[in-house]
């Protein structure tokens, strides 16, 4: 069973074997006690198929609770302790404004104000040598300050602690003696990478949510145990792996943004199943769209992301969190994104969203502003009678009125033209963000298979794909609960990235091997708690760059002790990847390595054998509807199909709509749809429409 607690809905999925989905369910999230909604969802799926608690052999949980606690500022009162002389790491940050022209900008709230920023004497240098011993005589004073400030958690981040953690460990010990109940996060445990600002932020974020998450996880586990669940619960992490409840309670920052990671895992799983090595996952929901690049069945990962941005979609306006994550680009473009016209008569869509309440104008819940969903309704792409299994009656007139009033008037457009224009803008925004992300990653979107899911992904997939030059799209089964399904395919794993400066020419192999042994021991201990038996896989990487450059290139290392001949392979691999990204190498330039990573994971079950077939037969629709064609901009007839009624080998000619309970797939006029043996929909651009 997999449970994904989102901001609005809690998704529950029950699966048998490797991929047979028995039941899925969406219930409203219960924000005050999220475990209650989760229990309700679990009971329902069990009842749907007549199974019992004790039959569940695995339980995977992902939650936005950690993310929301940060966004909604519901965490602990945290004090920070940094090295004397460096009280203002947080205030000074990178000394920059995130928006060039905004003179009135306000910097993000980084959770610990200067009044709670404490320091202690003692200094390690970059080699991890002690320059000044820890000032143990100051600890009594620190404890008194923490008490006086009313703090229940402390984030300790001392200079160069990733190179030598002795002072952090000793300080924790001394504080624990004086304040046994105090929650303490140490920077070298949370994020052992160089760059004091990023590491301090990550440590603070961890300390901030630790008390809340520890309580929540204990409640969740005991609630399910009381119902009769016998198997252990594993938690989904942002890095796309699973970890134990114990580890999650110690490093809760790793749970932040774990929900969307499930979607990328699902896409990676499907990519492996169907044998596609270059994929773009496209997850479009009600508020945002998320894109992820997936190569060789592995979602692209990053070592850093941002939380609590002052401007949600502006890079650099938030608090950096430096942990291993599945890298996703998030755009303020969802079904609820609001369209408006600015003073230059430019049409803008999002990032503001009407949310679940009041929602799009067409939902008739009091919303009056036109949204992307209203535009889709006005273009005939959403069947008013069958939306959300008919539980929500759509008011097409309300959508058209909102479109005509807020967009059409300013631009002298009819409601349907306004709707078309909104689609063009929002689809272009998503495609642009995707292209930009690909460029930043040194990759290309062309020739990629797009795997689309989420409530609005299948509806917008062709329109976005066309603008990214992607010619093939796959819509998996149950696209509406994609993230939760993805959880089921995540491995038990743990990744550590640690800074250790070296140049390739002067790499001390014995020391490096000892360093990796230590990383391996640490990671394996965590993984064994969740996967006690069986073999484990390990993946080692080095983040390499030419001296003087800022952009690091990830190079995979063999999973064994390095020997001298490996060095030339390393250089070769680095240069090959560099050449791929920048068309040339820089002979004679020193190659340096600042960070090293190791992931230990338990293998996941292989997907069932997939048979790829090309033949099929066109089937005729039993009904048609009028839609505004996204290719020509003219009204036309489109076939309407129930997804559940389509079977292996069925071919559908665009324009058509394929409807299922949680979403609709738009087959544009320049696309064909084909159903495969596992129920996926493949959308393929017609040869004559290709450019």
């Amino acid at each position: 069973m997999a449970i994904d607690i989102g901001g609005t809905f809690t998704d529950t999925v029950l699966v048998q074997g490797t991929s047979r989905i028995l039941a899925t369910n969406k219930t409203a999230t219960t924000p005050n006690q999220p475990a209650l909604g989760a229990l309700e969802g679990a009971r329902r799926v069990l009842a749907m198929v007549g199974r019992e608690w004790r039959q569940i052999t695995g339980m995977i949980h992902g939650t936005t609770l950690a993310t929301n606690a940060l966004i909604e500022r519901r965490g602990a009162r945290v004090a920070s302790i940094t090295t004397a002389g460096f009280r203002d790491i947080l205030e000074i940050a990178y000394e920059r404004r995130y928006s060039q022209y905004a003179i009135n900008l306000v910097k993000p709230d980084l959770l610990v104000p200067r009044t709670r920023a404490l320091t202690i004497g003692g200094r390690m240098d970059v080699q991890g040598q002690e320059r000044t011993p820890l000032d143990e005589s100051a600890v009594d004073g620190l404890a008194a300050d923490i008490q006086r400030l009313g703090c229940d958690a402390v984030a300790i981040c001392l200079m160069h602690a990733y190179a030598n953690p002795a002072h952090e460990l000793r300080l924790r010990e001394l504080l624990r003696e004086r304040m046994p109940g105090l929650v303490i996060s140490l920077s070298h445990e949370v994020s052992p990478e160089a760059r004091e600002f990023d590491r301090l932020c990550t440590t603070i974020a961890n300390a901030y949510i630790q008390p809340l998450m520890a309580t929540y996880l204990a409640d969740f586990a005991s609630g399910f145990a009381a119902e009769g669940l016998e198997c252990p619960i594993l938690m989904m992490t942002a890095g796309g792996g699973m970890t134990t409840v114990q580890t999650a309670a110690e490093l809760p920052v790793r749970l932040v943004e774990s929900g969307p990671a499930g979607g990328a895992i699902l896409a990676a799983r499907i990519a492996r199943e169907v044998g596609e090595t270059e994929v773009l996952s496209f997850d479009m929901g009600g508020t945002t769209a998320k894109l992820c690049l997936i190569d060789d069945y592995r979602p692209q990962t990053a070592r850093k992301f941002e939380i609590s941005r002052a401007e949600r979609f502006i890079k650099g306006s938030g608090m950096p969190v430096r942990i291993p994550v599945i890298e996703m680009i998030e755009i303020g473009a969802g079904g609820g994104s609001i369209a408006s016209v600015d003073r230059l008569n430019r049409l803008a869509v999002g990032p503001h969203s009407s949310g679940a309440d009041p929602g799009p104008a067409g939902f008739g819940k009091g919303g009056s502003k036109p949204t992307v969903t209203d535009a889709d309704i006005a273009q005939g792409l959403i069947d008013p009678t069958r939306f959300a299994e008919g539980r929500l009656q759509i008011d097409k007139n309300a959508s058209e009125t909102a479109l005509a009033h807020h967009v059409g008037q300013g631009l002298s457009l009819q409601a349907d033209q306004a709707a078309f224009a909104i689609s063009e803008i929002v689809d272009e925004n998503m495609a642009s963000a995707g292209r930009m992300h690909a460029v930043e990653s040194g990759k290309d979107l062309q020739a990629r298979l797009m795997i689309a899911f989420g409530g609005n992904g299948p509806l917008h997939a062709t329109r976005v794909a066309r603008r990214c030059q992607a010619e093939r799209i796959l819509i998996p089964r149950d696209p509406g609960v994609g993230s939760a399904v993805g959880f089921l395919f995540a491995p038990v794993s743990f990744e550590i990235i640690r800074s250790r400066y070296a140049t390739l020419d002067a790499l001390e192999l014995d020391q490096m091997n000892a360093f990796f042994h230590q990383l391996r021991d640490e990671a394996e201990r965590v993984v064994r708690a969740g996967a006690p038996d069986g073999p484990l896989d390990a993946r080692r990487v080095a983040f390499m760059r030419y001296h003087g450059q800022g952009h690091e290139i990830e190079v995979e290392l063999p999973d064994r002790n390095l020997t001298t001949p490996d060095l030339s392979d390393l250089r070769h691999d680095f240069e090959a990847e560099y050449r791929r990204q920048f068309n040339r190498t820089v002979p004679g330039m020193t190659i340096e390595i600042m960070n090293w990573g190791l992931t230990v994971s338990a293998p996941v079950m292989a997907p069932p054998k997939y048979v790829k077939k090309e033949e099929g037969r066109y089937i005729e629709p039993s009904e048609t509807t009028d839609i505004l064609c996204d290719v020509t901009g003219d009204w036309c007839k489109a076939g309407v199909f129930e997804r559940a009624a389509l079977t292996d080998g069925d071919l559908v000619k665009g324009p058509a709509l394929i409807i299922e309970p949680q979403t609709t797939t738009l087959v544009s006029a320049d696309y064909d749809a084909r159903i495969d043996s596992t129920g996926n929909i493949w959308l393929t651009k017609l040869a004559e429409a290709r450019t």
Partner: protein
Amino acid sequence: MTTPQTRLQVMWNRLLAVVEEQGQALVRAAFSPIVRECGDISAGIFDFDGRMIAQAVTGTPGHINTMAEAVKTLRGHFPVQDMLPGDIYMTNDPWIASGHLNDFLLMMPVFFDGQVVGFTSCTSHLIDLGGLGMGPEGADIYDEGLLIPPCKLVDRGEINTLLLDIVKANSREPIANEGDIYALIACCEAGASRLSQMMAEFGLLDLAELSEYIIETSRKGTIDAISELPQGTWRHVLTVDGYGSEIELRAALTIEKDQVLLDFAGTADCTNKGINVPLNYAAAYSVFALRCVIGSDIPNNAGSLEPFRVIGPKGCILNAQPPAPVAMRHTLGQMTPDLVYGCLSQALPDLVPAEGASCMYDLPLRHVPEAVERGEAPFALELVFNGGTGARPTLDGLSATAFPSGVWGSQIETTEAAAPVLFRRRELRPDSGGAGQYRGGLGQRIEVSAASDRDFMVFLSVERIRNAAKGRFGGQDGAAGRVRIGHDGPDLPGKGELRVGAGQTLVFETPGGGGYGPPAERCPEALAQDVEAGLVSAEGVECDYGDGK
């Protein structure tokens, strides 16, 4: 047939995305730390006539309209009919490109269906172009290094190897320079290929209609914003430290119903040190400052820039003429926003912030000259620190934050990994933010010494040591910058070379921003918070905020 407006807008959005992609490609491949850390680059797309239609929003405003003008100039040098696919032109002439020799500007014609339809261009800062290196000591441009007049760098895809060899032979960093030049070429090519891809996708044969739409919409939007401003002429004088003796910068700002004119008449003449500023660069920072307040939501292009005109008498320090030395033109260039705001705040008192630290506090650290002979590893660090920004009319200033430049500050841990230095302190300077109803941002105090038993060199070119950031409308001045060796050492001037002995500590304090409005009007809770946080000391309250408030 005319294209629907939303379609044109989608294409405009796409162009903006293309230039951002172009800019990102350059930043990622660059070697120069100032490019990597500070995004000191520019990337743009131009129409057939050389009018800029899109520009990447990058780290520093120094390229904002220098590039727009440079491409026009460069295009004028070479007949379009002689251009072939794969050609790329370049120059680093400070008076054409971006104000000093380190900035290389490339321009590439974009071909579609066999015809030139437009141009892509990019600029990036190269580490070293020979001469005396980046510093204010050159007596003229010839001392400052290699100047390359407008020329063809790439001929039908083949790089001019002689030119590349000349650049390498004249540099202390030949490998990095070569890498940066290739990064620039790749950036131009990436922009060109994306642009023609986009034209194919949207079925365009040329850029004429799109370019007209972008430029007209932007020009009209900017003029609308200008027409809402009070009309008239306002003057201001800003005194800056200079190198050796103080300098007066003067400006007259005239707002008319459809344009804004800035005139530097009366500004002091050039000096014999490399802090002189070519007009294109002074204009870039001045127009940036104006655009922060006037029509800031309109993207940069020929249309939005057209209503702003900047002039100055030839030979004044903000319109330096060849062969004046200009290597450190940013030192004063970054002060021009305070000069412009001195005028503008008279017209728009509620929209313009107080003066800030403004000039970035570069801290270039080097090995001592004899280190190489002694067989020690040489090192060179380009550290950037910032002071406080001026208080805003409704908000406090930002502490230790870059403005007007968009540079990123350094991290201590990565800095100590890159060179043998040890930082003892980096903290905000209490009481350095100018008191006021809204307080200026605080400066910071940095203490650094050698990590080993070796001396090291410092090359200073900073401002606001003698002339602190002024407050506005009763707000007090921010603290001036201060540099010394050892806590009790004498105060040192802001420009020149220093040698810091082993065991000594360089104390480097950046300026605070000016306050806005009388301190007596400061909200008592805000003042109490400042005191509790230690941003304002008890003495500071006594002395700056008066009678126990």
